[in-house]
C-alpha cells in the first residue's frame, strides 16, 4: 500500500488560513489501512481543525467526505456538487489523490493534509515499513523476494556494504540489513549459489530516469 502520515496541525492550519469553509476529504483505500486518511481520521482532523480555529477566535465550517478512491476520476466526481460551496479542499489522500482532485477542480485550492511516505507493508499493529520504490523493473526474482533498492540504505545491488552487525544496518539497530535478509532467505530456499551472480548496473530508465512515467494499456484504453 501507499503509506502516509498526517501533517502537523500548525502546517494544515497555515494552509487554510483565511478559509471559512473547507471540504475535508478522506480516501477509503491505502490511507485508511495505514490509519492516516480514512473516515475516522477525517472526523478526528475535522474536530481538531475546528477547535484550533475556535482558539484563534475564528469559525471554520468543515464538511466531511470520504471517497472510495481519490486517485480515480469516477469517485472524485462525487465532490462536484459540493465544490462551489467551499473555499478549499483539504485532502487526506496520498499525493496521487490530492493531485487528482486538483486536476478535476481547477478553481478551488486543494491542500494536502498528509505526507505521503512510501510503498510498504504492515509489520505489525501500527508499524509500516518500506518495501518498494517502484523502480519499474522488478528484480525480486534475483534477490530472494527482498528488495535491495527499497530496503538497503545504500541501494547496493551486489551484497552488503560491510557495515552491518548481527543482521542490522549501520544506520540503526531497528533496520534490518537487506542483504543479510537476502542471504538468509536464499539459504532457506537452497539457492545460495545464486548469491554469487552479479547484478549488472541497473537501468534506471524505468525508474524515473526518463521523467514522469505512464502506463498505457491499449486493450483497456
Amino acid at each position, binding site marked *: 500500500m501507499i503509506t502516509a502520515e498526517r501533517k502537523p496541525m500548525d502546517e494544515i492550519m497555515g494552509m487554510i488560513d483565511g478559509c471559512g469553509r473547507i471540504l475535508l476529504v478522506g480516501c477509503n483505500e491505502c490511507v485508511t489501512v495505514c490509519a492516516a486518511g480514512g473516515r475516522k481520521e477525517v472526523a478526528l482532523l475535522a474536530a481538531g481543525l475546528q477547535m484550533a480555529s475556535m482558539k484563534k477566535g475564528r469559525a471554520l465550517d468543515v464538511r466531511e467526505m470520504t471517497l472510495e478512491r481519490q486517485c480515480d476520476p469516477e469517485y472524485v466526481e462525487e465532490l462536484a456538487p459540493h465544490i462551489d460551496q467551499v473555499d478549499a479542499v483539504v485532502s487526506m489522500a496520498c499525493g496521487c489523490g490530492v493531485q487528482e482532485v486538483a486536476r478535476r477542480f481547477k478553481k478551488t485550492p486543494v491542500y494536502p493534509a498528509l505526507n505521503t511516505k512510501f510503498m510498504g507493508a504492515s509489520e505489525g499493529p501500527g508499524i509500516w515499513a518500506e518495501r518498494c520504490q517502484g523502480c519499474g523493473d522488478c528484480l525480486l526474482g534475483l534477490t530472494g523476494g527482498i528488495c535491495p533498492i527499497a530496503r538497503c540504505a545504500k541501494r547496493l545491488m551486489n551484497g552488503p556494504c560491510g557495515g552491518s552487525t548481527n543482521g542490522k544496518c549501520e544506520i540503526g539497530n531497528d533496520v534490518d540489513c537487506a542483504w543479510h535478509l537476502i542471504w538468509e532467505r536464499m539459504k532457506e530456499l537452497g539457492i545460495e549459489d545464486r548469491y554469487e551472480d552479479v547484478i549488472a548496473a541497473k537501468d*534506471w530508465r524505468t525508474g524515473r530516469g526518463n521523467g514522469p512515467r505512464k502506463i498505457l494499456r491499449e486493450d483497456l484504453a
Partner: protein
Amino acid sequence: MSFQRRLTSGEFVVLAEMNTPKGVNVSALVANARKIKGRVDAVIVPDMDNGVMRMSALAGGALIHQQGMEAIIHLYCRDRNRMALQGDVLAANFLGIQNLLVVSGEEMANGDHRDAAVVNDLDEVELIGAIKALQNGVDMSGFSLDGTPEFTTGCTLGAFADEKTLDAELADLEKKVAAGASFVVTPPVFDVERFAASLEKIAALNVPVIASVFLLKSVGIARYMSLNEPGAHISEEMIKRIRKAPDREMECLRIAGETIAQLKKRVQGVKIETQGWEHKLPTILGFAGL
C-alpha cells in the same frame, strides 16, 4: 585583465567553449586552447555536454588554467547531489578555476548513458545560492568553512521562441540573479536584430548579458536548427547563403564572426560555441575582428 574585472568595468568579453575529451587524450584541447590564448578572455568548459560522458569539467578547467588562461566551468544538478556539487566547487577554487556557470543539464534520455539514474538534488537557483553561501564561508548545512572560495558565478537564460516564453524565462532568470548570479548567458543568437528587441527586457535585470554564438557547421545543421529550435529564428536567407557559398565551411565561420561583430555593439560579451570545431576558433575570431 580578468574576466570578472572586464565584466564589472563594462569591457566586452569573448568566451570560447571547449569540450573535454571522451577519454584522457587532452592534446587537442590543449592545442586548440593555445591557439586562442590572448584572443579570448576565458574558456568555457562544459560538463558532460549534451549528456555525453566525458572527462569532467573540473579537470578541463584545471587544464585551461595550467595553460595560463582563465576558465569558466559548467555546473549542473543532474549528476551530482549537494555534497558532490559543493565539494567540486571547493576543488575548483583550489585548482585555480575562478568562474562558474550554472546550467541546466541535458535530459538523461538524450545523452549516451540513458540508463543512468538522475540526481537533481538541487535546482539551478538553489545551486547558485549554495555557491554564494560557500563564498560567505558556510556550507548548505550551515557549517563553517576553513578557507572560503571566490568565484564569479553566471547563469543561463532558457531558450525562448516568443515573448510569452521569454517572460517565463525572465522570471526564472530573476530568481537566479537574486540568488547570486552575476552574469547571464543567452541561448544562441542567429538574428541579431530580432534578439535586440528581447535584449531590452533581459537588460532590465541589470546583469551583464553574454550572447551565445552557435557555429552552424553546415546547411544540414542550419536547416535542422531552423526546424527544431523555434527560438533560433534562422532565416531562409541565411541557409541559402551557406548553400550557395563556394566554400560553405568558410561561409559558416564568416557568419559566426559577423554575428559576433554585430553583437559587440549590443551586449557585454559573447560565448562562441563551435560544436567540436574548436580548431576553427581563430578563423571565427578573425572574421569577428577580434
